[in-house]
């Protein structure tokens, strides 16, 4: 792979806190190596700003290996940038050319208020899980792990849904700011396993109710969520969620739901 250096113009969203209005700020960075990750390019920018006595750009990040789900930037209009199935931290600068202008914004959704600059509050996701995204099994209650065989393809599909990292790119990508892909991945993961089956009806009703309460929009089958998901979570999960939801409604399974 050919390495090269580049100079870039960055238009970055700056916002002091949740209450104040934000605006775009323009920065220039020089000699950015094509081998850097996108966040390492931001490290360079921030070091430059600190040296100049200016305030650095706040952004969320932690593992920098594409699994924690903390990084969250809309880059040139696309959640996590233009590489498919890639988080911002795994996007590398060889995706860009010398002289490019890059626009960087936070996730935009009323259920994800901006904390500062590119940092948003995603605790609404935690509350959706609290509404039912679990199996009610206390520590010590378990039977032997091999007591219930699970068909391999079901286990694999449950895993594919469980691979969601809870980053919120689906919400950021959706014009309605719907959280259906996130929610459906969890409902599917648990509904496909025998362990999650006993609570499946209450789970889906309660989690959907919570999603609505948090102010996420509704799903109109646009598919942007799937296209931008860094973990390739399939939109089929939403179809499965709808089946689960209808099944729960007609079955009166909502009697234990809030």
């Amino acid at each position, binding site marked *: 792979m050919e390495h090269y250096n580049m100079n870039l113009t960055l238009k970055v969203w700056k916002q002091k806190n949740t209450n104040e209005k934000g605006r775009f700020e323009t920065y220039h960075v020089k000699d950015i*190596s094509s081998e850097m990750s996108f966040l390492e390019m931001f490290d360079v920018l921030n*070091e430059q700003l600190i040296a100049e006595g200016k305030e650095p750009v706040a952004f969320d990040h932690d593992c920098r*290996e594409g*699994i924690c789900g903390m990084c969250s930037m809309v880059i040139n209009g696309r959640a996590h940038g233009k590489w498919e199935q890639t988080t911002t931290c795994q996007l590398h600068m060889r995706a860009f050319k010398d002289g490019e202008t890059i626009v960087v914004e936070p996730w935009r959704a009323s259920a994800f208020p901006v904390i500062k600059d590119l940092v948003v509050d995603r605790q609404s996701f935690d509350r959706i899980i609290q509404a039912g995204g679990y199996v009610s099994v*206390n520590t010590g209650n378990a039977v032997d*792990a091999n007591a*219930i065989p699970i*068909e391999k393809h079901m286990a694999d599909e449950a895993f594919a849904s*469980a691979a969601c990292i809870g980053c919120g790119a689906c919400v950021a990508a959706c014009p309605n700011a719907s959280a259906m892909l996130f929610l459906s991945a969890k409902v599917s993961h648990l509904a496909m396993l025998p362990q999650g089956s006993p609570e499946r009806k209450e789970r889906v009703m309660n989690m959907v109710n919570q999603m609505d309460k948090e102010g996420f929009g509704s799903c109109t089958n646009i598919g942007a969520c799937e296209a931008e998901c860094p973990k390739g979570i399939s939109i089929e999960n939403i179809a499965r969620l709808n089946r689960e939801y209808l099944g729960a409604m007609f079955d009166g399974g909502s009697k234990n739901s809030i």
Partner: protein
Amino acid sequence: MALNSKIPAGSLEDKWEKYKSTCKLVNPANKRQLEVIVIGTGLAGASAAASLGELGYKVKTFCFQDSPRRAHSIAAQGGINAAKNYQNDGDSTYRLFYDTVKGGDYRAREANVYRLASVSANIIDQCVAQGVPFAREYGGLLSNRSFGGTQVQRTFYAAGQTGQQLLIGAYQALERQVALGNVTQYSRHEMLDIVMIDGKARGVIVRNLVTGELERHFGHAVLLCSGGYGNVFYLSTNAMGSNVTAAWKAHKKGAFFGNPCYTQIHPTCIPVSGDHQSKLTLMSESLRNDGRIWVPKKQGDNRKPNEIPEEERDYYLERRYPAFGNLVPRDVASRAAKERCDAGYGVGASKQAVYLDYASAIQRYGKIEVSKQGIANADAATITKLGKEVVKEKYGNLFDMYAKITGENPYEVPMRIYPAVHYTMGGVWVDYELQTTIPGLYALGEANFSDHGANRLGASALMQGLADGYFVIPYTLGNNLADDIRTKSIPTDHPAFVAAENEVRERINKLMSIKGTESVESFHKRLGKIMWDKCGMARNEKGLKEAIEEIKALRKEFWSNVRIPGEVNEYNPELDKANRVADFLELGELMCLDALNRNESCGGHFREEYQTEDGEAERRDDEYMYVAAWEYKGDSNFVMHKEDLNYEVVHPTQRSYK
């Protein structure tokens, strides 16, 4: 102060069973009156908080990330060990115990390790019950693979995302307790001090990272589940935010620090590509199941890997360690890679890398698939294609990650790998009950020092974190809190809380008032370089002595010239980082001191002065078969206490993987 490890009497097999049957209990009504603080929400913290919440304790959890689900346990790739013996290949509790003690180079406590091995099977049961989607065979039962340092298949896994799946399982159990009102969770909060009342840990001072406000929280007990301190090296496989601060504050309040010099350098990471590098990425040890590690036989060979014929390749692990081959423990594999690179056989632009090659695994799997599918006279292209599909299913996400970072296709060319800091076996000293030398303060998971000796085996970190949280602390905490049922919650206007908060505030104000010229990041990088060069994969007396002086000087410079932009009372990541780096600058010195004291080589601690003729670690059991537990006595003033290690069952020998 004499260290009391509180190991129960009786035979190794009976200790934990007996402890559980005889420990004191707290009745359900009293549990509701007892408050427990949990710092960190990785596998240890989330599993402990969920389990304690289920029992009825009033729990508060704190994490610096925006959600408990982000904790760095999530990045563990390869798997989790358990002595299930589902494969009928001779595994047992004893064998897992033995492999762990041996893998740790005979520097771990026998009783703790045996307990770990004996609860390992329960962990898998619990996780499956929670809906953790482990890999399965076509018959519907769980699949296993091998990991380094073992000759059985006891590692359970979920593709290359085992840590993620286990953490989400624990996180969901935790969120359930939040919904039930048993646990209150605080995200974007960082612990900055322990509050001591009458010699006991009774609470914490935390900083709300969004508003900058300091908060006081009371607890009858405090559990540190804050992970390891590998980021003292700046470059490591840890997350950017992983830090020692909670453990270090506890240390300064009286908790001894055990074996700080025991750090694990993981052999298979993506090599450093330049000065801009902010972290290193691990390629799971599970890749050593099928991948073969090699360098060219000729020094400075600049040919492309695919142009180097088989007979000109040196599969040095298979050559040096025929019994374990590519599956030797991590410390052995890392040193062997360093040895080849130092001797001039390294590959890639930096020459600080070796190859991890999947070509032969692709062929092997391809042939199996061809015969499974009954394809007669399959051509080479079909075999390769089918082989790649199998490898993709097993390791696809790891291969994708490699391709994204390096821009190379690992299905076509061998991966380049090099060792990197990964895990710290050292940590806060704890007794058998996981209690530190501060009464009421406990340490779980990577934050404690207890189970891995001088080297941790692969797939054992997840096991230990969950063992501590799900199956150990619910018993040992009760045994101690049973004596605390008459202690009412202490109001946080108590003078000890006020004083602790003031101390924290003054330190933050001091940091902010320096207004120097150099960024926090720059100091962190400089510290990391000292640590890696002089307290890294190989250490010697001269280097360690220099490092101690250099760290002291760097610390002084930090406190007079660091520049922290922004304000105290706002979201200020630079200030958060400064608080952490200030603690790393103290810890680094203690690590060097510990490494200097330990005049032997064992596990991840390799002192160049102590090696056998063929370059293997030379332990000195007569003098160093002890845990070095360090007490903080003030700036640069540490006193060592020894906890002798008594091996009653296993007989320490020189580790051999030949």
